[in-house]
């Protein structure tokens, strides 16, 4: 589902190396946690996957799409196939919960009837039934993140990338968000999660990839967080 082959990312001439010849393979329907200290290269890795940035060298193939052959015009089509959840939610502040989710479907030109059918179901999955008409500022952090997740999964992507989705949340809310991610994974979506949270990593008992200084230092199933 995700394949990285000796991917290197350097910034500028003297900016240093963010990722150093990373190779990685993620199977469909896997739940993978990427851990590492700030600046280790986690965010860079995710930005390469969403094509916010280009690698300096190496090969990236996601869901059968070879990034080398991807034209700028085709980037929107790629992003529609990948669901992304950000640490800072990135919700549209002047739209309601419902509109934030339906917006993702409007972009791809889905019919209104289909949208009205899909959005309530997705909001139900993330546990936001009854809050459709709230504005993002009226929600707690955990609720906001669940709106973002609903928005990311409503298009039924095969891959969900969650970049520190619990970074701004207290433990109880963080766990709510993680449970939603597990639920989505059970429906068959490949989940790639980055986190700092040792507790979450240890309780999930999933494949853990540790990045340090731009390199993968460990990759093991049912892994634990090693600081």
């Amino acid at each position, binding site marked *: 589902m995700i394949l990285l082959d000796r991917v290197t990312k350097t910034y500028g001439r003297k900016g240093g190396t963010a990722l150093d010849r990373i190779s990685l393979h993620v199977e469909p329907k896997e739940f993978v946690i990427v851990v590492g200290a700030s600046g280790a290269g986690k965010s860079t890795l995710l930005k390469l996957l969403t094509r916010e940035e280009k690698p300096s060298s190496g090969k990236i193939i996601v869901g059968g799409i070879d990034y080398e052959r991807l034209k700028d015009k085709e*980037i929107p*089509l790629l992003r529609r196939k990948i669901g992304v959840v950000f640490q800072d939610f*990135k919700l549209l502040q002047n739209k309601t919960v419902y509109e934030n989710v339906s917006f993702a479907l409007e*972009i*791809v*030109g*889905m019919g209104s009837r289909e949208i009205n059918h899909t959005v309530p179901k997705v909001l139900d999955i993330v546990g936001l039934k009854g809050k459709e008409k709230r504005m993002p500022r009226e929600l707690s952090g955990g609720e906001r993140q669940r709106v973002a997740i609903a928005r990311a999964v409503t298009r039924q992507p095969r891959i969900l990338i969650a970049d520190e989705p619990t970074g701004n949340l207290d433990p109880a809310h963080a766990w709510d968000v993680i449970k939603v991610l597990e639920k989505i994974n059970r429906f068959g979506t490949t989940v790639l999660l980055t986190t700092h949270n040792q507790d979450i990593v240890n309780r999930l008992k999933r494949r853990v990839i540790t990045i340090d200084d731009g390199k993968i230092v460990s990759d093991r199933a049912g892994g634990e967080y090693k600081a």
Partner: protein
Amino acid sequence: MKQPPFLRRKLINFGRIFRTGTINFFRNAWLSVAATAVMVITLTIILFSVIANATFANTVQQITDRIDISVYLKDSVNEEQREDLISQLQNFENVRSIEYITKEQALEDYKDQNAKNIDLLVAISQTDNPLPASLRVKPEDPNRIEEIRQFLEQPDIKDLQSDETSYSGDRKEAVDNITQATSFLRTAGIAGVLIFTVISMLIIFNTIQMAIFNRREELTIMRLLGANSWYIRGPFIVETVLYGIVAAIISIAACSTLFSVQAAAFGVSSLNLLDLQFANAYFEQRFWPILLIQMVIGISIGAISAYIATRRYLKFKTIK
């Protein structure tokens, strides 16, 4: 994920872009008011410049129409010689028309002009008709009468003339002055229109750019969700096009009001070079075309500004 067929999807997208743009127009009420106001001022300035320019041109036309060259003929000139002279003059490109005024006609005109001067009328009726027949030559362009003048100064032509050639009854310098002044006014009018158009386009562009800067976060999010460029840009363009349409209507309404108030209040038909009656008629006769042109200008300024202003935020951030 099911998707409707291509054409239906395009229609749905267009509908949504249009709806979002309209909603934004009302949601960002203050910005809409500000941008529309600038647009109204622009369109009104352009409209006024155009009307003023047309009015000046009309004044110039009226003055130049009055400029003519009178060639006074000796009584001894026979019909053949006269026709010969007329056809020679007609060969000049710059000659628009030649009117032959007989001695009798000249006398009638003279009597009409001096209807109040009884003594003069009595004196003139007691003699033979002292007035010469003449040719009234109207030039196409009063600035270029020099060649006609040279032709009339030729000795054999001069022989046919009883008096010095008269240029509009005034001295030639006076004619020259008027034509120079009017052509200057015309150039100034066109330059004014251009300058005001450019200035107001810059202001509008800036306003829209500010609006987009305020919503750059929104643009980035749309981009990350995989919206294509037109889906993001479209609503902005719809919004600015609405500014243009509303501004055109307000501008026209304001001008209409102004003209009708002016016509009612002053009852004055002209202020020196500004023939208000003409300006009024010009505006009224061309009301619909002017409204249409105003809308086209407003829509173009808005759409072009929005297109350029969004371009910057729609580039893919792909750092190598």
